């Protein structure tokens, strides 16, 4: 039995050479992605994951892990496997081309025309 400096450990009567069956897959459950909102009016933001057996527990762990210092007003949890995400390898799907200036505010320059018109040229 371990005689520890920690009275709680001594009381638990732990054998020094105790053995344990290795943890099996899913012993630590699956994962949930956690999102929080810092203050009302802000967008929710991804903050990390928790391992949990169900959404209620994920919420509990998420609140404890990411929300215990009063930096959140709202939390969402979503099963990782329910998130449909793009691949970084396909990030060219977000590429755009200079011709698409018509989508941008900067693509419209009217002052030149107005000034020209005012000068009557």
């Amino acid at each position: 039995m371990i005689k520890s400096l920690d009275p709680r450990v001594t009381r638990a009567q732990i054998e020094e050479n105790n053995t344990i069956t290795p943890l099996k897959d899913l012993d630590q459950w699956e994962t949930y992605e956690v999102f929080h909102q810092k203050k009302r009016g802000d967008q929710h933001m991804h903050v990390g994951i928790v391992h949990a057996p169900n959404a209620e527990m994920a919420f509990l762990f998420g609140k404890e892990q990411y929300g215990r210092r009063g930096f959140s007003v709202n939390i969402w949890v979503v099963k990782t496997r329910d998130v449909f995400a793009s691949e970084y390898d396909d990030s060219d799907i977000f590429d755009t081309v200079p011709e698409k200036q018509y989508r941008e505010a900067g693509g419209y320059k009217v002052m030149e025309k107005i000034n020209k018109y005012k000068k009557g040229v």
Partner: protein
Amino acid sequence: MYGNAYIDPNEKANLILAEEDPQKLAEFEARIDRGEKIEPKDWMPKEYRKQLIRMIEQHAHSEIIGALPEGTWITRAPGFKRKLALMAKVQDEVGHAQLLYSAAETLGKSREAMINDLITGKSKYSNVFNYPAFTWADACVIAWLIDAGAIINQVANAKGSYGPYCRALDRICTEESFHLKYGHDNVVTLATGSSIQRDMVQGALIRWWPPIMHFFGPSDKISQHTEILMKWKVKMASNDDMRQQFLDMYVPKIWDLGLSIPDPLLKKNTATNKWEYTEPDWDEFKRVINGDGPCNAERLAVRRHAEEHGRWVREALNNVGSKYIVPLA
């Protein structure tokens, strides 16, 4: 706390890149050079993945095991306020482990596998936690100086190249600032208190100085291996540089309190601007990290006990339809 992974300096360096696709490797290195982060599903060299898993996993284990010497004093912390504060700190450390295990598992090692490797003694954790916290003052010195060392390491690593690790470290560093203040406050209280309190904290400092000097690990051998890890921003500062930074920041603060550090050679060389000190006993370091320290057996037995006795709860909660997939970020 405590992310300073132990890397075997004798590992063969020339084999590291042997089987890697040169074009993918070049793109990967260019991304890191541009200061961009690597994300979980990106292509990465095998060695990058392996070293990061080892490093983040060891860091996570250190947080879990580090909660034990400090936890020892929760029930006997002097006064209600300190009890609450210590509980909050220990909870933070366990939370750090959760964040780090999550970052490591994005690289493909499951949390179950990491825990199994911890409790069978296959994985390492920070060597300092194989030493006991004899008195309340030991817990105070740990909270101040070991956390201070950890912060230096974590702030450096937070600028590394792997996105999930950096994000976890940013979150961790925010909480560490409370640990540092809390630890300092405790040490100052003892050092400015009665003569019994001063003796207590001086004793703890004498006990903890060698582990503190061990904390950043032995000098890095200048090897091709270290160079690659630095180039890939896996390792962000050399062990000696971090040790120097620690001495720079904390030795004056310790001396301010009139405490003495048990190393007659310790002084700052004004010509080189570097601290000189007695070379730590690296044989002891190796002996302890390989299992033969005062608390190694107890630490792992306690973890095994906790895992085994919590198992029925985890199993009772388990959901038949669960299916694990690697987290996204």
